[in-house]
C-alpha cells in the first residue's frame, strides 16, 4: 500500500534524534454520557443509546456529568497534574455528520488538569520521565461506517451510516509535552507510555481501558532532528494507533520514514498519517496546517466547572494504589525473583496472573501457565496474551486437573489447544479427547519393571543413592506409556520399588 521509502532504524538513529508526543484519548466508563443522561454502553444496537441532546435536536442544552469530572480529576491526580480550580468548556466548530451539533464541546485553553508527569519504566528497569502538558475533558463523536467502497473507506463509498451511540461519550484527552532524549528507545518508550496510561486508567476504574474497543486511542506525533540540533523537526501525527504493539511499530516506522525523507533533502510534510496494521506502514491522511480554524469560543451553555480544593483532596484520598507501587507489592506477595517478575511484566501478564491467583491458583502455578503456555501462543497469534482467549478460570481449572493428577503437563498443553479451538471447558476436552493419566498402578509397575530391567546399571546407581539418575528410568516409562503416565507417580513408584528415599 505504501510507496514510501524508509531507512533502516539503525541508520535513522545514527543520523537523527527523535522527538515524540502523544495524545491519548481515554473513554470514561461513566453510566451516562458527558452532557446527557443517555446510557454510555458499548456494543448496543446503533442509535439506541441516544436522546435529544446526543442528536443535537433544536433547543437542547448540555449538562456536565459530575462523575465524568470526578474521573477526569482522578486521572489528573494520577498523572501528577495540577487541577484547575475553575475551568470552562469551549466549542470546536466544524461540519461533519458524526458530530450532531456540528461542533464538539471540548475543553480548549482551560483544561481541568495540567503540568503533570509520569515516570515510565522500560523493560530493563530504566525510568524515563514523560511530562504531561494537560488532560482535558471532551465528548466523543458518533461512528461513521462507509458503505459500498473498498475496505470501508470513504473514498469510493456510495453512502455512509452513522451511529450516534458513541456521540457524547465522555473522553479525557491526555497530551504530553514533547518527549526528547529517548533516542533509539523511542518505539519502546512509546509502547511503555501508552501501556502505563492504560494501566493507570484501568487501575483507577475510570475506563474499561480496552484498546480493541477504542476505550484508549493513541495519536502518535513523531519528528526527527539532526543530532545536536535544538529546534524540533516537522512532525507527523499518526492517528488512532490502537494497540500497544501498533504504537511501537508506528513510531518505529515513522522514524524510519522521516529519516528517508530528510535524507533525500525533502522537508517532512506536516500531516496526519493513517496506521495500517496489515502492512505495518502509515499512509498520508489529511494535510494539517495551522490554517485549520475551529473558531473555538467558550461554550455559553455551560457554567465553569469548579473543583474546590476540598473536593480534589477527597478524590485524592480515594485514589487506588499506583501501578508502580502495586507492582512492588505483587512481586513481594508472589515471591518471584527480580528476573521472573520483570519477565512477567514485560510479557504483559501481570494482571492476568493477579486474576488467576485471585481465582484460586498459587502464584507459582499462575506464572508457570501464563509464561510457559500462554505467552508463546499469543506471540504466535500476534495478540496480547490477555486477549488470546484463555480466562483465569480456565487456567485454574486446568491447573487443578494437573495437580489432581488427572492429566499431566503434556496433556494440559493439548487441552489448552482445545480450549483455544473452542472445544469447551478443560474437563470437557479431557473427556472428548480421551486424555487421562494412567492412574492404575498395575500397568505402570509392569512398565517400570521393564525399564529397570532394560537399564540395570542405572537401577544400581539409584539404589546406591544417586537419585538424580532416576530421570532415565522415568523417561523409559513415559515412552512406554506414550506419555499417558503421571511422571510424578512414576517417580514415586520407582523409588518405592528400589527402596530408596526420594
Amino acid at each position, binding site marked *: 500500500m505504501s510507496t514510501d521509502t524508509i531507512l533502516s532504524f539503525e541508520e535513522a538513529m545514527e543520523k537523527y534524534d527523535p522527538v515524540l508526543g502523544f495524545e491519548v484519548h481515554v473513554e470514561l466508563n461513566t453510566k451516562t454520557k458527558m452532557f446527557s443522561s443517555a446510557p454510555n454502553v458499548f456494543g448496543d444496537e446503533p442509535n439506541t443509546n441516544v436522546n*435529544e441532546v446526543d*442528536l*443535537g*435536536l*433544536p*433547543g*437542547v*442544552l*448540555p*449538562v*456536565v456529568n459530575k462523575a465524568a469530572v470526578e474521573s477526569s480529576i482522578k486521572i489528573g491526580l494520577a498523572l501528577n497534574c495540577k487541577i484547575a480550580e475553575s475551568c470552562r468548556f469551549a*466549542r470546536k*466548530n466544524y*461540519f461533519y*455528520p458524526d458530530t*450532531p*451539533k*456540528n*461542533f464538539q464541546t471540548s475543553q480548549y485553553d482551560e483544561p481541568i488538569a495540567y503540568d503533570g508527569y509520569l515516570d515510565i519504566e522500560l523493560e530493563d528497569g530504566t525510568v524515563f520521565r514523560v511530562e504531561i502538558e494537560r488532560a482535558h475533558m471532551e465528548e466523543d463523536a458518533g461512528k461513521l461506517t462507509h458503505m459500498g467502497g473498498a475496505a470501508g473507506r470513504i473514498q469510493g463509498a456510495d453512502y*455512509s451510516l*452513522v451511529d450516534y451511540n458513541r456521540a457524547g461519550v465522555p473522553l479525557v484527552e491526555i497530551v504530553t509535552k514533547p518527549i526528547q532524549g529517548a533516542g533509539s528507545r523511542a518505539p519502546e518508550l512509546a509502547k511503555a507510555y501508552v501501556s502505563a496510561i492504560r494501566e493507570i486508567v484501568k487501575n483507577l476504574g475510570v475506563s474499561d481501558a480496552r484498546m480493541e474497543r477504542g476505550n484508549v486511542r493513541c495519536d502518535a506525533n513523531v519528528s526527527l532532528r539532526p543530532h545536536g540540533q535544538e529546534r524540533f523537526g516537522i512532525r507527523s501525527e499518526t492517528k488512532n494507533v490502537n494497540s500497544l504493539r501498533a504504537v511501537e511499530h508506528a513510531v518505529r516506522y515513522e522514524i524510519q520514514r522521516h529519516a528517508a525523507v530528510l535524507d533525500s533533502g525533502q522537508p517532512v510534510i506536516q500531516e496526519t498519517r493513517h496506521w495500517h496494521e496489515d502492512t505495518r506502514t502509515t499512509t498520508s491522511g489529511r494535510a494539517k496546517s495551522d490554517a485549520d*480554524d475551529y*473558531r*473555538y*469560543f467558550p461554550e*455559553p*451553555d*455551560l*457554567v465553569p466547572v469548579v473543583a474546590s480544593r476540598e473536593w480534589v483532596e477527597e478524590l485524592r484520598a480515594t485514589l487506588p494504589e499506583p501501578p508502580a507501587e502495586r507492582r512492588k507489592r505483587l512481586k513481594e506477595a508472589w515471591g518471584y525473583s527480580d528476573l521472573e517478575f520483570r519477565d512477567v511484566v514485560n510479557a504483559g501478564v501481570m494482571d492476568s496472573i493477579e486474576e488467576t491467583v485471585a481465582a484460586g491458583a498459587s502464584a507459582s502455578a499462575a506464572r508457570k501457565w501464563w509464561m510457559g503456555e500462554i505467552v508463546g501462543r499469543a506471540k504466535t497469534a500476534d495478540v496480547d496474551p490477555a486477549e488470546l482467549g484463555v480466562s483465569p478460570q480456565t487456567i485454574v481449572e486446568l491447573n487443578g486437573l494437573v495437580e489432581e493428577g488427572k492429566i499431566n503437563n503434556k496433556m494440559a498443553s493439548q487441552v489448552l489447544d482445545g480450549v483455544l479451538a473452542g472445544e469447551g471447558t478443560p474437563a470437557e476436552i479431557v473427556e472428548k479427547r480421551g486424555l487421562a493419566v494412567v492412574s492404575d498402578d498395575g500397568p505402570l509397575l509392569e512398565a517400570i519393571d521393564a525399564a529397570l530391567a532394560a537399564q540395570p546399571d542405572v537401577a544400581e546407581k539409584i539404589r546406591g543413592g544417586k537419585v538424580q539418575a532416576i530421570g532415565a528410568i522415568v523417561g523409559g516409562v513415559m515412552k512406554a506409556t506414550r506419555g499417558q503416565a503421571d511422571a510424578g507417580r512414576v517417580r514415586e513408584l520407582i523409588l518405592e520399588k528400589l527402596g530408596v528415599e526420594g
Partner: protein
Amino acid sequence: MSELTSNELIRLSAAALAAKLRAGEVTSVEVTQAHLDRIAAVDGQVNAFLHVNAEEALAVAAEVDAIRAAGGAAAEELHELAGVPIAVKDLIVTIGQPTTAGSKILEGWHSPYDATVIKKLRAAKMPILGKTNLDEFAMGSSTEHSAYGPTRNPWDLERIPGGSGGGSAAAVAAFEAPLALGTDTGGSIRQPGAVTGTVGVKPTYGAVSRYGAIAMASSLDQIGPVSRTVLDSALLQEVIGGHDPFDSTSLTDSFDNLVEAARTGNVQGMKIGIIKELHGEGYQAGVENRFNESLELLKEAGAEIVEVSCPNLKYALGAYYLIMPSEVSSNLAKFDGVRFGLRVLPKEGPMTIERVMAATRAAGFGDEVKRRIILGTYALSAGYYDAYYGSAQKVRTLIQRDFDAAFAQADVLISPTAPTTAFKLGEKLDDPLAMYLNDVATIPANMAGIPGLSLPGGLADEDGLPVGIQLLAPAREDARLYRVGAVLEALLEEKWGGPLLAQAPSLVEPVETLVETHGGSK
C-alpha cells in the same frame, strides 16, 4: 353558563379569567373556545399564529373543568392559572405541534420532547392555543423575517408588531390570547410589547429555563411572559420560572415573590434612575413625551427620580452584533439536513455530504439568518477573534459594571423601550442597520443579564400608536420590576381612562373601515 359574551371574555386579564374560573362563573372550555373563535375571526388579518392547537387546548380545558366540577382535593390543587389559555412563540419546542422557528429549514418538524416551560404549562394545565409567528430564529425586530409571512400590528395592520416576538405580542394585543410566551435575546419580548401596547418581561438571565427554546444566542436568550397587565406577567413568570437541572445556566434562586410584588406595588421612597444615554436624541418626540409623563407620575406617587449615566451603553449595540452572531453561527450549525428538518439535494454535481449540507442551508435559511451566520463566522475566525469576539466580551463586562454603578444610585432604572412607535411594514426591511437600532434600549439588559419589563405608556401624539416604557432592575431583583410596573400601570390607566388596548381597533370590522379609521395607514 357564563353571563359574559365571548367578546367580553377575551378582553379579561388572565388574573380575572382565573378568578372567574375558580368561582365557577365560566368554564375553561368556554374561555378557550372564545379565544379560538377570536383567532378564527381575526388571525387572517393579524397572522399572529403559525399553528392553532384547538383540539388539544380544548381537551386540556375540558380536563380542568371536569376536575373543578368534581371538587375535592384535585380541584383544590389546581394551579391558579389552570384553564387559562396561552399562546407560545414558535421558537419553543412542543410535543404534538410543529415547531418551525419561523424558518423553512424546520418546516413540518415535530419535536419529540417538550421544552421545560411547556412541561410547566402542562403541569399547570394551561391550554396551549397554538404557536405564534416570529422573525426566523428570532432574528429581527419586525417579524417580517418570518418565512411564513409577516405578522401585522393590531393597532394598524400596515405596521409591524415588533420582533422577533411579534406573533406573541400581536396575539395578546388582538385578544387572541390572554397570555403568551416569548423569548428575548436583544429585546424580542419588550420591543414588540412596546409597539403593540402590551406588557412583556425579560426575566433575569437564568430565571427561566432555556431548555427547549431553540437557541439563537445562548448567553443572551431568555424566555419570558407576554400579557396585557403587569400582574398577568408576574403570574406567568412564576409558572415558568425556577431552577431546571437540564439548563446549567438556570439559577437556583426562587422567584416566587413576583405576584405579591405586582399586587402590592409601591414606589414610595424608591429611587428611579433615568439612564442618560437611553433617551433624547434619536427618540421620537411622542415617545419622549410619554416617557417624561411616566416620570412625572412616578414622582407624584412618591418616587425619587435621579439621573444615572452608563457611558459604555454606546458600545452595547456594536458588541451585541458581534457576540450574538458569533453564538448564532455555532448554534445554527446543527441545521444541516442530516438528522431532522429540511433536506435539499444539490441540483447537479456530486452528492457529497458537504454539498447536501450547503444546499439545505442555502435553501432553508433566509437572508437575515445568513447575514448573521456569516458575520459570526467571521468574528470567531482565527486572527479576528481577539479584536471582535474578545473585545465585545470586554465591552459586556464594562456594561455590567455601568449597571452595577447605576444600581448603586437607583433601585430601578427607566427608559423608553424602543426609540419609535411601530413603523410601516417594509420600511426598514432593506436597511438592516436601521432595523438593528430599534433594539438600542433593550439590548443592554441582555448584555448584562438583568431583568427588564416593558409596559404601555400611552399613545404617541403624532401617530396615535403605543409607546413602551422600560423598567430595569438588578439581576435576581425581578420583583422590583413588578412592584414599580404595577404602580405605573395603575397611574397610566387612570390617566388614559382604562387599559390602553381598549382604544385599539376591533379588527372584526371590514379591513377597509379600519384603514379609514386610521387615516395615516394605507
